[in-house]
Every structure is written in structure tokens, then in C-alpha cells.
């Protein structure tokens, strides 16, 4: 009985695909399924996963946010420049700045979406351009390379919570990034399941009019969701910086569609109101494996975008085809008379 229930959820299918694909990659290149590789994957994808959580929650509320990656890079670039110019070499300071920016930019998104009731895709397209243009114009365009990077950021990037020794004595470890991801997941799960604001997000995604009538403060909920998404983007921005040790103000922008693809593949409905954190993580896992490991099976990185697109197209095709076939007319005849 439980298996039947599982079968109804699209997350199950995506998980299956992840497992199958991993098996396939491992068969071609056994180096895939090693602890070291797994830890490495977790380290490099935790940031994206956190971003995906934010996008997922906006999607739940019935909106589509394409400005998250821009907020992330703005948070990152400005915070690193502030650290450098003020000389304060503190990772918490970096996070504080980035998070503050994320919250503010998210709030601006919320203003346009909730006050003017404008279509969210177009609003966030506009704000994304606005934020990025403003940053490039008023802050600068020079990249910060590893040489100019504050030490605390570099240290943070190599911080591990768990160390494993290799045969030759060197170590690899589970990055602190993963811990942050887990913390974000727990917090988000709690908010969505156990707080009224969280339930409000589901409510406005399911039926905005009903939510208003029931007495939900829809404006407050929308502000929360976009600011929370901005907050997560801010966190991701600094994490990303620690990861690649390079701050190019033109990075990240344009990659949001891939993250949205991951969230959608994880089972979240584009129309809102439906989806799970688990599914989102599975979706991110799928996209990550695709993006990072094509090299492992010998395909050049040029195929990356194509495959992500292909997977998305196939994924949504299956989902919507399924829905179409299920949609038969109302059942009128309850009992068949002999």
C-alpha cells in the first residue's frame, strides 16, 4: 500500500532517475561512487541547493523568481569589496552584508509583486536587470581574484566538519557548506510545516482569493517569501565565493533557469501551491550530477546545457502527459446496472 502511495509522487520517479544515472556513471567511471567524490559534490552543490530552496518557496507561493542568482552575486560582490576596503577580515561580517542586501533586494521584489500585483516572472526579470546594472555601474566591474581575497573567506571555503584520511596520509572532508545547507533545510521545513506564515505560502499559492477572504495577510506572506528567498541568495553568494575563490560580478547571472529547472523537476508545480523540499533536493541532485559528471563519462562540458535542457523537456513532458491522460470526464455512472 505504501509503495502505491510512493508511486503517485513524481519525486519517486526523479529519485529513480538519479539513482539510475548514478549507477550508469559509476559503471563507466568507478571514481564516481566514492566518498571523496560524494563529499566533493556536496561541497560544490550546497550553495545551489540553498538557492533552490528559496526559489522553491517563491514557486510555492505562486510566483516565479528569476532574480535570485542576481541577488546572490550582488550580495557576494558588494560584501567582498566592503571587506577589502574596510579591512575587516571576518567571514561573519561578509555574511552579514550579503544577507542584508539579500533581504533588501527581496523586499523590493515583494513591493512590486504584492503592491502592484504584477506578473512575477516579468517583475523579477526587471529587478534582476535593475540590480545587476546598478551594481556594475555604481560599484564596479573588476573581478577579485584569489590573491586579493580576504583570508577569512578562503579559510571558510576549506573548512571541514569531518575529516577522512586517504591512504597516502592526506585528508579530505565534508565541507561546512553542507552543514549550512542542512540548517537551511531544517529551518525551511519547520517554517513551511509548523508556522502560519509557512501555511500561508501554501495558501496563497493554492487560492489567493480564498487566502484573502480567510484572513491571511497576503502582503505580509509575500514580503516574507521574497525576503527569505533573498536571504538565502545572500548566503549562497558568500558560500559561492568561498567555493570558487574568485568574485566576478558577471558570474551566476543567467544561471537561474537551471535552478528553476531543478526545482520543477523535483515536482514543484509551476502554478504554485504544490511541491516538497525533498523533491527540490532530488531535483538539484539530478541537475548537479548532470552538470558535473558528464565529463566523467567522457562528454565535453559543452554538452552540459543541452542535457539540462533535454532532461527538463523530458521531465515536464512526462508530468504533463501523465496529467493529460488522467483527465477523463466526470464519472457519472456510479453503479453499472446489469
Amino acid at each position: 500500500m505504501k509503495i502505491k502511495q510512493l508511486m503517485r509522487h513524481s519525486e519517486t520517479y526523479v529519485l529513480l532517475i538519479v539513482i539510475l544515472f548514478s549507477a550508469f556513471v559509476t559503471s563507466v567511471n568507478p571514481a564516481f561512487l566514492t566518498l571523496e567524490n560524494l563529499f566533493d559534490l556536496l561541497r560544490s552543490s550546497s550553495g545551489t541547493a540553498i538557492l533552490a530552496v528559496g526559489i522553491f518557496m517563491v514557486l510555492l507561493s505562486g510566483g516565479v523568481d528569476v532574480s535570485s542568482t542576481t541577488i546572490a552575486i550582488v550580495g557576494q560582490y558588494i560584501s567582498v569589496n566592503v571587506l577589502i576596503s574596510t579591512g575587516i577580515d571576518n567571514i561573519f561580517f561578509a555574511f552579514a552584508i550579503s544577507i542584508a542586501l539579500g533581504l533588501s533586494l527581496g523586499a523590493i521584489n515583494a513591493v512590486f509583486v504584492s503592491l502592484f500585483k504584477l506578473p512575477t516572472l516579468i517583475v523579477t526579470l526587471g529587478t534582476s536587470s535593475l540590480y545587476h546594472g546598478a551594481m556594475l555601474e555604481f560599484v564596479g566591474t573588476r573581478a577579485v581574484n584569489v590573491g586579493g581575497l580576504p583570508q577569512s573567506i578562503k579559510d571558510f571555503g576549506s573548512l571541514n566538519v569531518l575529516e577522512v584520511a586517504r591512504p597516502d596520509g592526506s585528508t579530505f572532508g565534508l565541507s561546512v557548506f553542507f552543514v549550512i545547507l542542512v540548517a537551511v533545510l531544517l529551518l525551511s521545513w519547520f517554517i513551511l510545516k509548523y508556522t502560519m506564515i509557512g501555511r500561508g505560502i501554501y495558501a496563497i499559492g493554492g487560492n489567493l482569493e480564498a487566502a484573502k477572504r480567510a484572513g491571511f495577510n497576503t502582503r505580509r506572506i509575500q514580503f516574507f517569501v521574497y525576503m527569505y528567498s533573498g536571504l538565502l541568495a545572500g548566503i549562497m553568494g558568500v558560500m559561492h565565493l568561498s567555493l570558487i575563490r574568485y568574485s566576478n560580478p558577471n558570474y551566476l547571472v543567467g544561471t537561474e533557469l537551471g535552478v528553476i529547472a531543478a526545482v520543477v523537476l523535483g515536482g514543484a508545480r509551476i502554478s504554485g501551491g504544490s511541491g516538497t523540499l525533498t523533491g527540490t533536493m532530488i531535483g538539484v541532485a539530478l541537475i548537479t550530477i548532470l552538470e558535473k559528471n558528464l565529463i566523467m563519462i567522457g562528454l565535453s562540458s559543452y554538452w552540459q546545457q543541452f542535457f539540462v535542457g533535454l532532461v527538463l523537456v523530458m521531465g515536464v513532458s512526462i508530468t504533463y502527459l501523465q496529467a493529460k491522460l488522467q483527465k477523463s470526464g466526470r464519472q457519472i455512472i456510479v453503479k453499472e446496472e446489469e
Partner: protein
Amino acid sequence: MNQLLSKLVKLQFKESKNKYLLIIMVLVILTMTVLMPSQFLSGSNIQSMAGQFPEFGFLALAMMLAMITGGIDLSVVATANFTGVVAALILNKATTAGVAPTVSITGAIIAVIAVSIVCGLANGSLIAFIGVPPILATLGTQGLFLGLATVLTEGYSIGGFPLEFMTVGNGTIIGIPIPFILFVVGAFVVALLLNRTQQGFNMYMIGSNPTVSRYSGVNNSKVIMKTYVVTALLAGVASIIMISRANSMRPGYGSAYLLQAILVVVLGGADPDGGFGNIPGLLMAIVTLQVTQSGLNIMAFSPFFRKFMWGFALLLVMAINFIAQWYSDYKRVKKMRAQSASAAEVVS
């Protein structure tokens, strides 16, 4: 003559939004003219403006068609990239192989048409037959097409086209840039499609309410399919202009156009939910934006400020649209109640 003029005026203002647009457009042109008369109104500037926007204009036309049907085509730029890369490769390989320019150019154009149609069919099938929401379908195909373009070029930019081909993008006829002429023809054809064909009529209706159109005997799938094939073809035309002007093509070229296309379509009066949109409005919007961009350029604003400006402009326009729509609804309802009340009085 008077009749013709009044007909033209009526056509223009069929949508009430066009009135505001005209005012905005004139204001912007005047501002630029006043701020830097010699540079802005110079022959070279006008020629350069007229040459710059057509490649974008075709993309905007494509986007508007998709939005009229209540959808969106996030893959237009990717389609242009893909078809452009294919054409570029053909031209490049053919030129190095010593093939005559007329042959290679014809071949390239045929290839663009063919590839565009395939791309359009892909989008159309996903949306019309499988029922995938346009935003998701074109999100996916965007990756597919761009990915294919990347694979074909391995990230490099392709060049080496026959000289004759360059004239398409850079040549002029009696001083008017060829791309501009192409765009005028294109806009005219699309206007014809929208206002004078069954396909166009049905596109508006499907955008308004696809259930009602189905109940009314419209073949929704066919109309949607044709829509996305046409958008892809328009993207294909854009790509020819692009590669001819730049004398090269690389995947990722024109990515900024996507946002701008949506901006211009919305500014031009199309409803993102579908059912409305017209050529005069779109043209005025394009002109307004082109003039603004050109002006900012002359005033030596950086491209980053422009990016900031696009975002700002889009948001401002939507906010104004929202308020204007609310206001015109208010006035219209008031007027109509008064009219039907007086009509009722006459009857009873």
C-alpha cells in the same frame, strides 16, 4: 484622404494604451533632440539606429506573437543562436571550400528556415500536444537549442563569411539600411497576419480563453503550433541579420535581448495573459526604446547603466500600465452604464 487619415488614426487608437504610448514616444524623441540636437539628429546616428534595432525587432515580433496567445517564448534568442550558428558554419565551411557565394548564401538561408521550423515544431508540440505550460516548455527548449549551438561551435565564435553576405546586414538601399527594410516588411507581414487572417484572429481568441475557442470550433493545437513555428522563423530571420552585421556568430549572442523583448512587448500594450497586443503599439515601443538607448549611448552612459535602465523602465512601465488600465476600466464602465441606461430609456 481625410477618410484614410481618420481610418489610420482609428486603427492606431483601437487600443486605448496606444494614446499614452504615442505621447511617451514623442516626449522621448523630443528630449533626446533637445539635449543633443547635432549628434542625435545626425544622418549617421539615424542610420545607425535604423540598423541596430531590426535584429532585435524581429525577436520582439516573435515574443509578441507568443504572448498574444497567452504564452511566452523564452527560447527566441536561443533559437536565433542555434540557426545563426548553423548558417555561420555553412557559410564558413562553404567559403573555405571555395563554393560560390550565391550558392553558400542560399544554402545558409534554406538551412536557417529549416532549422527554425524544427525548433518551432518542438515548442509547438510540447505546448499544444503534450500540454506543457509555455514558460516551462520554452525554458527547456532554450537550454536545448543553446546547448546545441554550444556543442556545434565548442564555445568559439564562427566567422569567415563571403563578402556578399555582409551587405545583408550592413548595406543600404538609397541610404536606408537593408535590415531596416527587412524589418518594415516583416512588421507589415506580421500585422497582416494578426489583423487580416483567420490564424491571427484565432490567436487573439485562444489567448483570451482557450476553452471558449475550442467550444467555438477553433483547432487550438493547430493555431498554437503555427504560432510557435512563426516565432521560430522570425527568430531565424533575426539570426541572419545578426550574423551578417557582426560577421560572426557565437552562442550566447544577444542574451540581453530576451528581457528587452519582453519589456518592449509589454510596453507596447500586450497583455502578458494573452488576447491583446498590436503592431502599432509594439513599433512605438521599439522606437521609444531604441531612441532612449541611442541617446544614452551618445551621452556616454555605460552599458551597465543601460542594463539598470531596462529593468527600471520595465518596472515603471508595468506600474503605469497597471494604473492606466485601472483608470481606463473605471472610465469605460462608467461610460457604458450611462450609455446602456440611456439606451434602455429609449426602448422602454
